[in-house]
């Protein structure tokens, strides 16, 4: 399997808590990502999706006014060319079965459970990118 190059992937971090968003961005930089866009909620993320053009989205579930599930549902119908296949990782403390089921139906690749730990984030992100690379024709 090909090794993903973190420095070559643009990530979009969607999180409404300023501190957690900054913490995740810091962890991603430590992991090796250089190009990181940020959004405060689902609406903000959708408004910048085409300009950000991310290769990976890391997204909280509980956000106001548009939560992570609604964001991904809307994203999958979006006209942005990569809307249907961009890998999404949820960042959340919600692990209830109905939410997990809904998330995986939307093609969410993985969960990172809060409190976010750098090692766990790194494993999930790199595994997700490896899978995305393997799917490429």
């Amino acid at each position, binding site marked *: 399997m090909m090794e993903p190059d973190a420095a070559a992937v643009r990530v979009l971090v969607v999180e*409404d808590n300023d*501190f*957690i968003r900054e913490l995740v961005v810091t*962890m991603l930089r430590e992991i090796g990502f250089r190009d990181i866009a940020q959004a405060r909620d689902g609406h903000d993320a959708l408004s910048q999706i085409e300009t950000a053009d991310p290769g990976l989205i890391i997204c909280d579930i*509980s956000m106001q006014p548009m939560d992570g599930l609604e964001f991904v549902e809307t994203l999958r119908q979006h006209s942005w060319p990569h809307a249907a296949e961009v890998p999404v990782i949820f960042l959340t403390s919600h692990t209830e079965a109905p939410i997990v089921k809904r998330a995986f139906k939307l093609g969410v690749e993985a969960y990172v459970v809060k409190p976010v*730990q750098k090692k766990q984030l790194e494993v999930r992100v790199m595994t997700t990118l490896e899978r995305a690379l393997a799917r490429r024709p």
Partner: protein
Amino acid sequence: MSVPTPGDASPAARAEILDLERMREIFGTIDGNAITMLRRYIESTAPLLAEIGRAIAAHRAEDAGNAVHSAKGASLSAGADELAALLAELETATKAKAWDAAQAAHVQVEPAFRRVQEAVMRLGAEPATTGVR
């Protein structure tokens, strides 16, 4: 300082005010960057706690729940374990719309937050140890 009382086994009483391992895992050491990040936690959590107080006073369960959930997640990530445990109790109470229990838990939140603020302020002035109890 948080001193557990004999027989008090609540998660908040057993938790550290500030567990520095969370920041150490990211930054390697408690340096200027880690302290700046903890200050960002304080700055971004203060307005959430104010919103929690207003929402509880007005019995707005959804608003209280959203703010509590956000503050709890940030506190866990910052290593403010005592405060996170109190917020978890508060989250349960607001979900159940148990306003007396929510008020009782909320009374403990402000002093716990002040203890975290004091612990973060001290970090710039003295060498960091493992955590603060």
